[in-house]
């Protein structure tokens, strides 16, 4: 191990990690919004838009992020839709993540038994109140493990951003390997920085999961 090399390039990795976290956070927030919209459309059974969201979910879940990014970054400018690399990364992550989030939320809503909604209606709650007080709290608890898994999955997926020349951790590592042949040190820093980003998320995730494990009453 060449510690001088590690100390020298630590700031470069720190910058790359900040970029990874920034784009990852923006993409995840957007994908939560997209997921909520999709699930709302399906819950309220809005015609036509519902079919569109189903098609979107199938397309997004069955293609890899790398291909989606290549298409957005290199393909779309040819027909006049031009974006910069960072916006493209956020858009790609949101496009991919939206469907995963939608599926996570939907599985939560599906798990709430019909009898619960019927009971709520017979108590005189309207559709919105049923959603707010009966369905939502239970769905939140049930979909939490999938939601947390999705966040980790999306943060991991940011590693393909180097393909569209965003200076993320992968890009930095590959660059340093190519420039100085300090493969061991570059890869060591890469692993350390990914651990620094993902380990806390994973720990917080399992903590939140445990706190929210209150659903399943009467089953």
């Amino acid at each position, binding site marked *: 191990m060449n510690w001088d090399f590690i100390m020298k390039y630590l700031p470069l990795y720190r910058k790359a990690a900040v970029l990874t976290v920034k784009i990852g956070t923006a993409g995840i927030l957007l994908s939560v919004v997209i997921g909520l919209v999709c699930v709302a459309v399906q819950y309220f059974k809005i015609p036509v838009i519902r079919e569109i969201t189903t098609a979107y979910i199938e*397309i997004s879940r069955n293609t890899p992020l790398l291909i989606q990014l290549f298409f957005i970054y290199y393909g779309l400018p*040819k027909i006049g839709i031009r974006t910069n690399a960072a916006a493209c990364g956020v858009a790609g992550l949101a496009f991919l993540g939206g469907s995963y989030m939608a599926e996570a939320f939907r599985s939560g809503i599906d798990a709430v038994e019909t009898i619960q909604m019927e009971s709520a209606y017979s108590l005189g709650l309207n559709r919105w109140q049923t959603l707010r007080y009966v369905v939502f709290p239970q769905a939140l608890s049930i979909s939490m493990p999938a939601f947390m898994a999705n966040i980790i999955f999306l943060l991991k997926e940011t590693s393909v951003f180097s393909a569209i020349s965003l200076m993320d951790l992968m890009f930095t590592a590959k660059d340093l390997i190519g420039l100085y042949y300090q493969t061991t040190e570059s890869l060591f820093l890469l692993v350390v920085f990914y651990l620094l980003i993902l380990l806390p998320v994973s720990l917080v995730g399992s903590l939140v999961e445990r706190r929210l494990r209150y659903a399943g009453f009467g089953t």
Partner: protein
Amino acid sequence: MPDLGLEVLLKGKNMARILGGLGVALRISLLSVMISIFAGILMGMLMTWKNPISRALTRCYLEVVRIMPQMVLLFLVYFGTTRIFGWNLSGELSAVIVFSFWGTAEMGDLVRGALISIPVHQYESAAALGMTSGQIYRYIVLPQTVRRLIPLSINLITRMIKTTSLVLMIGVVEVLKVAQQIIEANRMNSPNAAFGVYLTVFLLYFIACWPISMLAGALEKRWR
């Protein structure tokens, strides 16, 4: 109608080359899936053991795979082993090693989930009927586990196919690399090739994965 650069696909053997590239990606994923399923079943059984040492080890393995992006693992195996051990692994072999390592953990977790989802009273009833532990596995546990497992492992196949797109980054010539080559070669006479060719690759991945996902969904619904 704007120039979408689709005519490039009809030139020469371009379409056949793209399909050949997809073939490479599918070959890597199928090989890794087969290894992962066999190793994953053993791993899953290991994960249900109560032995604290095996428990800690499998738990660590699972967490490493969960937390490290597959791309990092690819780099570690492809570049790292060359440097540290002096091995000269080809890109394809490194990909199969990494995806099997990843798939075994995922499959193992699915198997573990399916095994512990079988209530204790099933084991106890079988034992009360005088079955040996081999018979319990063969006639009681396995049939129920397999039903829960098959849809989930089919999903793993589509994830594997999608993840193989990453091997581009370690220099394997697969569908995306072929697409890049075609676009570069036709840069002068059809500048918009990037749109058409990448759209085609996008659709090819969709065509490869979608039927498999549908099958998994249908089986899940039927066997619930």
